[in-house]
């Protein structure tokens, strides 16, 4: 099975292959991030820094 990546917004495990095919990726600080859906990606793009704060607790 393909390696799993973690959605930084909701904390779900995401299959990078699927996320890439669906356009559910974003780049930040030279890293590629994968998302479970459009909502998380848009949340991330609104304010990426928020999700790297150690205080941030994923909603799931």
């Amino acid at each position, binding site marked *: *099975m393909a390696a799993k990546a973690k959605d930084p917004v*909701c904390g*779900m495990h995401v299959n990078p*292959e*699927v996320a890439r095919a669906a*356009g559910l990726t974003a780049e930040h600080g030279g890293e590629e991030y994968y998302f479970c859906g459009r*909502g998380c990606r*848009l949340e991330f793009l609104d304010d990426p820094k928020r999700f790297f704060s150690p205080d941030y607790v*994923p909603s799931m």
Partner: protein
Amino acid sequence: MSTPLATAQMTDPPAPMIELSLPVVGMTCASCVTRIERFLNRSDGVDEAVVNLATERATVRFDPARIDRAGIVGAIEAAGYEVAPQAVAANEAGVEDDTEERARAADRRVLLRDALASTAIGLAMMVVALWPGGVPWPMERINVWMLAPATIVQFVYGRRFMVAAAKGLRHGDLTMDTLVSMGTLAAYGYSLGITLAGADMETYFDSAAVIIGLVLLGRWLEARAKGQAAGAVKALLKLRPTTARVLRDGTEADVPIDQVRVGDLVRVRPGERVPVDGVLIDGSSAIDESMLTGESMPVDKRPGDDVVGATLNASGSFVMRAERVGRDTTLSQIARLVEQAQGSKAPIQRVVDVVTARFVPAVVAIAVAAFAGWMLLGPEPRLPAALGAAIAVLIIACPCAMGLATPTAIMVGTGKGAEAGILVRDGAALENAQRVTAVVLDKTGTITRGAPEVVTARSLEGTSDDQLLILAAAAEQGSEHPLAEAIVRRAAQSGIVLPVAGEFAAIPGDGVRALVDGHSLLVGNERLLAEAGVDAEPLAGPAAEVAEAAQTPVLVAIDGRAAGVFGIADTVKPESAEAIRRLQSAGLEVWMLTGDRVAVARAIGAQVGIPPERILAEVRPADKAAKIAELQAAGATVAMVGDGINDAPALAQADLGVAIGTGADVAVEASDITLVGDDLRSVPTAIRLSRATMRTIRQNLGWAFGYNALLIPVAAGALYPLTGWLLSPALAAGAMALSSVSVVSNSLRLRRFRAT
């Protein structure tokens, strides 16, 4: 009067809130829910918005004066989601089949219209001719009046018989159409002669018209029955989804099903049908495969599992990779197979064909003989009686009931099988299945699940069962050995999240070594432990017990100390014992054939009720066919049931090859019957279905032949010298139509066959 109304209109009541529930597409997690709720609640006019991830709906209470549906949809779209269109697009994949079906339905309507018109005209003429006390007009004038309607029936509604008969005659074929054409033309021609001569004699115009009407009615019933019998395939094809949600080039879009390519990633949402065959790669779900296997319990699917097109996604959303599309999908193959089987001829039908081919000339000969007999020996007036007898013989002879006897039953039987996940290759397979006296079952994958499972786990003191499983499974994660996979699968089933193993090393033939959570792990056989200097003596007892129960022992040592043992075995499917009992109570010998060791085979045999003397163990794959041949030489008619890969030669050798649990493989080619699911109970069901179908065929043939044997002599006038009975041609036509109808309805009774 207008005042109160005006007042009411002027008083502005507090604006009522409206609640709207919208299907939202594209939600994947709780973040999506909060994001949509936030966007909605921020919108002016929205009182409250609740979004449900499971039902994929947003329920919004709002003030219609300040925001409308479009505004709410706009807010959801601004959040990055879509609202599903309310009306689901019309099913387009069915169009092709529908037009074909509509054309056939139109044909049937024309047939019924012609049949009713001909019968009505014929009956009207008959009423006039047979009016009690006679009609106040001379016969010759009535005959002239009847000429026009009779001619219309004969040459407009009855045209198709003469066209078909003429076509057949050019190839030297005598058919049902020949009989009908000869009979009605003789009746019409004789009546026309009388009318033109102006003779005061009765005519057969009415009989000719009624005959044409009733034969047409029979054809209509036949067409209708055929349409119903072919329904199984159509029902299967209707399951095909029309579009697939494909992830391609960074976007997700619904594309028509015929544009899905092998390798595409396809998202399947809850409640949708899987569009094509493929492998689940992300997410998990339970899938209802009952349309293929007849098994109604949804099957759990995880990444790596196969998913089959047209099955119903019952719970979660997942992404699959398309592997077979278009004509290659399981569904298309099944539909083709069923169609072939329904159109194929059972061996018994070839006998019927030979009889039918001689039947028509024989009937013509009898008709001529009857005519000659009445002309020479009959009472006066000779010509009408002789002609009446000859026409009755031609009309009552019914090769069509014989022609329908086998195909209708085969059609209903194979269709019924397909509904239950039993795909019969052709009529011959269906006929052979009822002759079977011995059923040979492959062990692995047929009686058993075919994948080893952890059956026992014993931990020594100082280690808990859970700890043993967690550590051993973590160590085995990197191994691809089936025994290792069994341990990892057992851990996954228990919902255990496995720690990561380090310093993993696989020792081929012996086991694995790894470091888990600071513990050094050895998982494998006795030699693995011995070579690492671990004393395996404490495990000798449990390991021997496990081996005694025909399981494979896997030993575990933690930090250089023997810690426990797993017993791993291929387990029996839960339905196998019942299936074997059903076969045995149906009077069949049940055998087990396996390459496995005798002890393992006997242990399995004891569980499912196969006695040791019927177990053929330690048979190499190449020798399996030879074993089947031995049974055949001893006089048995053998059905072989296998999972198709190494069993192919044995399946081909057997009188009836049954492939189980494959559905769409080459195994289908080697087998006569393919069971789509892996439930062994389908085998007794298939044999029962075969018996029921053949019983129906024999009843049909008995009815059709018996009817002809009985009524042809009566029609020829054989009873006249004894009782004075003579069959009128119109009555003969009615009897003939009835015989076809009875055969078809007898076949349709098979539809009540129950699979379980």
